[in-house]
């Protein structure tokens, strides 16, 4: 319906070419097969979100991409973020770590500790996560080609500190081709 004096706006389409209406009513639900077909939040076919309570139950994780050249500096930053309410960590790595070479490799010259943290040994990881309660946070490792190694390091660190690995939560970027194409 057009109100008196209201200019008509051009139609809006989504990327698939389906027109998006300015607003929707129960009639539109019926035309899509009714509420049975659309389902309830948290159940098949998940039209109305993947969790029943979604963000009412648990807000999304705030994970600021944050880290510095050395594990010590990174640890200080992590602690600061957690103290200020962050519940997840997003760990950046330097390029030698990202492509899977050591800091003393000739090709690493000039790149060590730039754009992220240098990790050569498990000890580096232990330093970065010192004093951080691993089952209270979720961790995102922004690592691709070397994802398997870095996830193994994270798990080894957790085991060494006595955590049940099954209780850890997190993810890795894990795009194996990212550094190569």
């Amino acid at each position, binding site marked *: 319906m057009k109100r008196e004096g209201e200019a008509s706006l051009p139609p809006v389409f989504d990327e698939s070419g389906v027109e998006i209406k300015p607003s929707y009513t129960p009639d539109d639900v019926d035309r899509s097969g009714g509420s049975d077909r659309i389902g309830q939040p948290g159940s098949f076919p998940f039209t109305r979100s993947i969790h029943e309570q979604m963000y009412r139950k648990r807000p999304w994780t705030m994970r600021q991409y944050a880290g510095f050249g050395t594990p010590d500096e990174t640890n200080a930053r992590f602690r600061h973020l957690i103290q200020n309410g962050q519940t997840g960590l997003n760990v950046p790595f330097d*390029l*030698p770590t*990202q*492509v899977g*070479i050591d800091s003393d490799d*000739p*090709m*690493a*010259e*000039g*790149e060590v500790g*730039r*754009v992220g943290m240098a990790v050569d040994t498990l000890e580096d990881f232990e330093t970065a996560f010192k004093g951080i309660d691993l089952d209270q946070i979720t961790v995102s490792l922004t690592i691709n080609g070397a994802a398997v190694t870095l996830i193994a390091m994270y798990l080894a660190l957790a085991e060494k500190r006595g955590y049940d690995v099954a209780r850890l939560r997190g993810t890795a970027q894990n795009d194996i081709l*990212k*550094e*190569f194409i």
Partner: protein
Amino acid sequence: MMTEKKIRVLLAKPGLDGHDVGAKIIARALTDAGFDVTYMGLRKSAEQIVRRSVELNVDVLGLSLLSRSHLPLCRRLGPLLVDSGLDSVVWIVGGVIPEEDVDTLKGLGVDRVFPVGKPLESVVAFIREKVA
């Protein structure tokens, strides 16, 4: 009858950074300008770049750097160019290069720095002026 020799350009990405859209765009722009362009690809060592420059007998060497490792890498490459008799090669560097580092790079032998945002035509014009 003599045909004019094409200006020969070698482009490379030293260091470990994998972002090379910039290098590829430069390669395309220089090719369109009529230059003979070779792009070496990602993660080339200073030694590999100098060796290829000698093999191709280049007029211009262009490096693309985005990871902030430009100073140590150019510091390594500069003397290798001189040792290989490539002093006269026009050496250009582009990418994420802070203004404060431009003079240092020039001191290392770089002829011109093209930080992010410089028009493609300015790179073409500079090469034409220096190599002609």
